[in-house]
């Protein structure tokens, strides 16, 4: 049996509640972190180019960083929608808030150290999220989803029209100020990658702890049966708003990361409604109510166009970009429907099912 769960006894509750109780899981995560933090940076670029069709710098700046940022954003949405059961279609707007807050903090308070810039961006977004979460106290389901759309449009408009926020130039690009930590500047793809990786790992650990704690349970109780949850003593007011605040914090940090580490600039049209749907899609495909799912879903979506590109190129040469983008839309929509029908807990559950099978393999039962 490769994947052993039985025979692994936990003598104390503390051990049973550890973040990865199964030794193989611990090893797996250890390996992934090792590869991410050490192997990737150290891997020689020349060798990289030979193995993959893209250069190392391109992979770092356009694929890995994007994957990490989307994972973080999806994680935020997952906390709100997958765990607390509050459907939100305005996630992209909160990311925009984070991006612009980060920009303004960094540009106007030049002495502010970078970690505080990101923290500040997250906190500002959390406050905004709190505000737009208030409708959730009165309305649920579709109505709430539409209320979050209101948030999306309102925030878009406010950012675009309040020049104090947008630096006066709505259509033009505002470049983000250069980043420095402890005097050392951060501008190579590798450095941006490591920064993003670090932020995402820390916030993921935090999220994983939260969802297994009293707060996570309270959220899930609201999701599963909010009336009963209230009668048991869970304050809907406090926990729903907390969900919006935390989720928005994550969105805000993701938005700031996009501005600083991915685009190098802040533009409102990067954060339009369509992005909200992409992230919701990542959430669904990856698995709602699952931390791992957020990463799987984001990975799937980030890799999808690359994958389609490669397949199309291999089978029939060049295709018009329209065709490719339409194909992407169809696959995206189709996958959402597919997962909702077949496996509503997404790729994460699929992965758990595979693990289940591995538990017994090679024995048949």
């Amino acid at each position, binding site marked *: 049996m490769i994947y052993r769960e039985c025979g692994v006894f936990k003598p104390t509750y*503390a051990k049973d509640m550890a973040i990865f109780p199964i030794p193989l899981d611990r090893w797996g995560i250890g390996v992934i972190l090792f590869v991410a933090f050490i192997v990737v940076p150290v891997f020689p670029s020349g060798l990289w180019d030979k193995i993959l069709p893209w250069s190392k710098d391109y992979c770092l700046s356009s694929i890995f960083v994007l994957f990490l940022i989307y994972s973080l954003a999806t994680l935020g949405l997952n906390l709100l929608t997958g765990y607390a059961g509050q459907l939100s279609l305005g996630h992209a707007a909160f990311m925009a808030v984070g991006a612009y807050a980060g920009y303004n903090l960094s540009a106007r308070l030049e002495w502010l150290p970078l970690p505080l810039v990101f923290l500040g961006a997250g906190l500002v977004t959390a406050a905004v999220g709190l505000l737009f979460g208030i409708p959730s106290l009165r309305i649920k389901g579709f109505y709430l989803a539409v209320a979050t759309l209101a948030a999306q449009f309102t925030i878009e408009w406010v950012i675009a029209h309040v020049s104090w926020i947008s630096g006066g130039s709505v259509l033009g690009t505002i470049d983000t100020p250069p980043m420095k930590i402890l005097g050392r500047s951060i501008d190579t793809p590798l450095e941006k990658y490591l920064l993003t990786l670090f932020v995402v790992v820390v916030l993921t650990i935090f999220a994983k702890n*939260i969802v297994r*704690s009293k707060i996570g*349970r309270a959220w899930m109780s609201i999701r599963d049966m909010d009336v009963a949850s209230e*009668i048991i*003593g*869970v304050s809907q007011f406090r926990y729903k708003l907390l969900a919006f605040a935390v989720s928005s914090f994550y969105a805000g940090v993701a938005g700031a990361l996009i501005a600083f580490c991915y685009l190098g600039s802040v533009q409102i049209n990067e954060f339009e409604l369509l992005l909200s749907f992409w992230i919701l899609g990542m959430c669904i495909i990856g698995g709602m109510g699952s931390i791992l799912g957020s990463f799987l879903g984001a990975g799937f979506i980030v890799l999808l166009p690359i994958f389609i590109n490669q397949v199309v190129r291999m089978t029939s040469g060049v295709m018009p970009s329209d065709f490719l983008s339409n194909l992407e839309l169809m696959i995206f929509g189709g996958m959402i429907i597919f997962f909702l029908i077949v496996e509503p807990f997404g790729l994460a559950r699929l992965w758990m099912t595979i693990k289940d099978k591995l538990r017994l393999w090679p024995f048949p039962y």
Partner: protein
Amino acid sequence: MNQKKEPLLQMEDISISFGGLKALNEVSLEVYPEEIMAIIGPNGAGKTTLLNIINGFYKPDEGRILFEGKDRTRMHPDHVAALGIARTFQNIALFRGMSVLDNIMMGRHLHMNAGFFSQGFFWGLGQKEEIKHREAVEWVIDWLEIENIRKSPAGMLPYGLQKRVELGRALAAEPKLLLLDEPTAGMNLEEKEDIARFILDANEELDYTIALIEHDMGVVMDICDRIVVLDFGNKIAEGPPDEIKANPKVIKAYLGEAED
């Protein structure tokens, strides 16, 4: 004997209407500490509504509710829970996406005080509390003899076990008043005896005060100290089981007029 003590819960002249239908009409009752009290009556008598009012889910149109002597009539449900009132539901309100363990841990929700960051970093108070309450929950799991299903998702359990888990969740809250809505509904004889034993033990060993709604007269007569009978929103009788059994009004409510 119990009547000598101060009542834990007092409902005075409670009335409530839904649309044009008067569900409860000036109902008054008391629940005394450490007793098992049953609320019985034909379907539609307003029993669950009564419980819902106690929980704060509905606000009565008229009347007062006093808990431990203080007026609690218009409290929000989550505040009512904080007073020490726990509940099980007629149609099982387990959180289906969560495991049995997590469901019962929900019962400890109000006892857990760790702050946001303490839980996020799982250190300090957050970690200690989680462990301490896990012990309490494991005790309940032991007591209810459901150790083998503790990690199962609650939604996948058979009906009888779900009801037992729901009882566990209510017990884990260590409430001052335990409200049970038809705890033996839909069970076979064996399951009923099990649940009845647990309820009796909760009262005798753990000194819980219990008010329950029940349709199974056998269970009611066996385990309850006092019975309140409702019919069409009115209280028509109150007293120990022997009196109620012989009360002509009660018999009429259940069986209709005797034919002459």
